[in-house]
């Protein structure tokens, strides 16, 4: 328990250092190009306005997962014993769940800590590309045939990507 806390504190320290480094980069950039920094900060505030409600939603989901989903159940859905069903769940969930990856990573960690396989997490993240709501835009720019073929390849290659990621990163 104490070890975990120490590890977590160390991680927070490392992450804070990275934040200070970025603030330093902003400071240096402001010396040479203040307009760029103002534009970046404006974009950052606008992004925060969008991200904060989503983060609040993720907080609630994470808490619900912590409260109700037992590790054994997550293991059964996305763990080593999940089999072909686990791969299918990862593909479909990746297509259905919206949101930028940085919002989904904490949820992924929760699943991982409860036994989800690396391969299935990679498959889930890859299939975020096949988004029903974005398909009309893709058809508009690239045509129906291209969109259908690309979507099929994304799903197929996501499985290969999952296997390869697991090969290099280990199963859990």
């Amino acid at each position, binding site marked *: 328990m104490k070890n975990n806390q120490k590890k977590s504190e160390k991680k927070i320290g490392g*992450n804070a250092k990275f934040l200070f480094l970025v603030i330093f980069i902003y400071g240096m950039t402001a010396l040479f190009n203040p307009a760029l920094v103002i534009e970046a900060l404006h974009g950052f505030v606008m992004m925060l306005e969008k991200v904060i409600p989503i983060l609040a939603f993720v907080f609630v989901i994470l808490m619900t997962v912590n409260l109700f989903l037992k590790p054994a159940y997550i293991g059964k859905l996305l763990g080593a014993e999940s089999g072909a069903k686990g791969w299918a769940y990862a593909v479909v969930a990746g297509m259905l769940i919206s949101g930028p990856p940085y919002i989904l990573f904490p949820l992924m960690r929760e699943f991982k800590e409860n036994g989800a396989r690396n391969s299935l997490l990679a498959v889930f993240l890859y299939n975020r*590309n096949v988004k029903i709501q974005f398909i009309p835009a893709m058809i508009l720019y690239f045509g129906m045939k291209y969109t259908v073929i*690309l979507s099929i390849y994304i799903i197929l290659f996501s499985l290969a990507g999952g296997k390869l990621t697991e090969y290099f990163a280990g199963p859990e």
Partner: protein
Amino acid sequence: MKKAFLKTVSIFRTVTPILTAILLLINLLHPLLQDYYQKWFTGNYLLDPLIGAVAGSISFGIPITSYIAGGELLQKGVSLLAVTAFIMAWTTVGIVMIPLESSILGKRFALARNLVNFLLALCVAMCTVATLKLLP
């Protein structure tokens, strides 16, 4: 209930500094990158997909932005192969996100996933364009 709440707070405490840093970095780099995509492509059919994948890997944003950028590149004469590699890398590889992903999901996972996805971006692009050529 309290335990679940504290566990969730602990996750957010770890994530918040790096998430803030990444969002700041994204907004600083975005204006610098968006005007230069077209200039990176050479017209070389073999080299351009690789350039597309690299450009996509260091870019970020919702997938629809990559379609718009890709559509513009296509109109400017960049090959469909390069544009597809660009779109795929944009949505599956996130070099700027690697510190965040490493911090949350582990360094090995983040590096392996991004490296594999970079290579797959090229494979998906080649397969898609080859299939399109085969179909009537």
